[in-house]
């Protein structure tokens, strides 16, 4: 059992590469064997296998059994963790930025009405 943080690291690492993201996008449409994946990506089977290993370690791809075939399948579950992490991070920024929106509004109103003898701006107090 991989610790949740380590799995998150593996997920980020797996997603950092554009080829691996493209492989995931392909597998999201349906399972495919290594040779089926190698053709559209114009890569050798060992090269594809190497990318698949990284994706498997991150839990994003599983190996199915179908007779002698070993089709790869997309497993979206770890993405929820990674997405939730990015979204929490984004939301933290967004909360501050909403306050900045309000502050910028206030500063612009003050600048516009400056000649009317506004109180001393706080930032110069």
């Amino acid at each position: 059992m991989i610790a949740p943080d380590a799995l998150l690291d593996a997920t980020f690492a797996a997603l950092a590469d554009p080829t691996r993201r493209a492989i995931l996008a392909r597998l999201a449409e349906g399972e495919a064997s290594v040779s089926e994946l190698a053709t559209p990506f114009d890569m050798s089977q060992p090269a594809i296998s190497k990318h698949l290993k990284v994706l498997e370690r991150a839990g994003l791809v599983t190996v199915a059994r179908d007779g002698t075939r070993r089709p790869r399948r997309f497993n979206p579950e770890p993405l929820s963790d990674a997405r939730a992490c990015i979204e929490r991070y984004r939301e933290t920024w967004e909360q501050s930025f909403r306050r900045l929106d309000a502050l910028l509004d206030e500063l612009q109103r003050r600048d516009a009405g400056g000649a009317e003898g506004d109180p001393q701006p706080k930032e110069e107090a």
Partner: protein
Amino acid sequence: MIAKPHAAEVTLPSEREVRVVRSFQAPRDLVYRAHTTPALVQRWMLGPPGWSMPICEVDLRVDGTYRWGWRSDEDGKEFGFHGTFLEVDPPARLRHTEFFDAGNIDEDMGAGHAVVTLHFAEQDGITTLTTNIEYQSQKDRDAAMSTGMTDGMEMSYQNLDKLLETDAAG
């Protein structure tokens, strides 16, 4: 009618970087000022509700240093960042190092520091701020992003969906 500002977008441009893009209904000299004047910074750079920013010291010049410190009003937890300005080019660009001060919280943000670049671009009265944070390793970046300072936030998964769609299309 004033258009609603775009929500912040978070992307991962490389293994060691995270980028945050947000636009504001204000000229860029004002957005720049709000990022560099301590009394203004202290009014908005607060993260989740319940945190205040009692420490904000800024010596705004190349090789000048800054120190930011936050405090949770609820339980007295404290943490901060400090660093040195590498580029100061008002009102277009700022670049500084960022070291994490753990204070009295348990979060492990990684031992390394980050280099933060802020780029302010103005068009038709709208300022788009791009904040690029480059860590020394992917591990440091992921640790920083995983730090749980926020709870119970609503989840929407559009950013990574978009990332995956873009790559699938390209």
